[in-house]
């Protein structure tokens, strides 16, 4: 077992464990902290695949966005009271059963397919570098780039219209 395999399994265990902690923590503040751990481990996976630009974008975008989420939790929650008054315990149980059924079906369906043994290039390869991605983004994907700025304009307008109190 090489160092790449060890790192892969280590990061996978961290990702799945911290994702489980996100959804099973009682306190929403703990959920946010575990979500940050999850995103950093996913960035580690990107680095392992040598998708360096995506790793950094993941850290910058999600660190910013998740810090804002964290701010929201602190602002909105009444941290003294027990949050989430559970109405229906059976509903929760049914949700967990449904999710694990989906996992079972997907794993059983994908387990024996032929294309599953193809290798993935780890650690090297130039397509994840910022230079190559930037060339493709500004040459071939110029229109989606401009459209995303329109999307951001609409997101700004939507946020202000929804969020501004009064008038």
């Amino acid at each position, binding site marked *: 077992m090489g160092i790449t395999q060890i790192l892969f399994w280590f990061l996978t265990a961290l990702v799945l464990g911290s994702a489980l902690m996100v959804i099973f923590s009682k306190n929403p503040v703990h959920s946010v902290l575990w979500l940050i751990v999850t995103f950093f481990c996913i960035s580690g996976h990107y680095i392992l695949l040598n998708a360096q630009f995506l790793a950094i974008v993941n850290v910058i975008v999600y660190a910013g966005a998740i810090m804002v989420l964290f701010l929201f939790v602190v602002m909105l929650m*009444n941290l003294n009271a027990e949050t989430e008054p559970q109405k229906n315990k059976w509903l929760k149980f049914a949700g967990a059963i449904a999710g694990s059924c989906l996992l079972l079906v997907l794993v059983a369906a994908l387990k024996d397919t032929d294309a599953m043994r193809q290798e993935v290039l780890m650690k090297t390869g130039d397509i994840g570098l910022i230079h190559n*991605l930037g060339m493709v983004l500004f040459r071939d994907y110029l229109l989606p780039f401009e459209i995303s700025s329109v999307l951001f304009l609409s997101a700004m*307008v939507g946020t202000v219209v929804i969020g501004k109190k009064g008038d």
Partner: protein
Amino acid sequence: MIHYFILQAGPVSSVSDTNNSFNYFPIAIQLIFAIAFVAIMMGVTHWLGPKRATEEKLENFESGIEIRGNARQPMAVKYFLVAILFVLFDVEVIFFYPYAVNFRELGWEGFMAVLMFVGFFLAGFYYIFKKGALNWED
């Protein structure tokens, strides 16, 4: 010969192996050191420090005056618009990194594209400003 000194990447032989995952090894070492330092410091202070849990020691210290109220009050919700708009302008920066790396190759065409992109963002910023979404006083 050892190419990797502590936290400093050594000389690389050719262009093809400049950009692989192994370049992130110093960063990984730094992360491990940071986490280990915090964990060891917290553990050692917990383990070595004396614990005399009297009632006066467990009390919150508020500059010597009597404790009033609770610290865990919900904060003002009006701060949220600034926070959300921060996320949007944070993402705008992400688009500039690929442009900055390819600045010379893209020439005037790329410059016009980025100018249009920034123009849309500035239009949004003008709208936000005119709406008074960033005003702290209501």
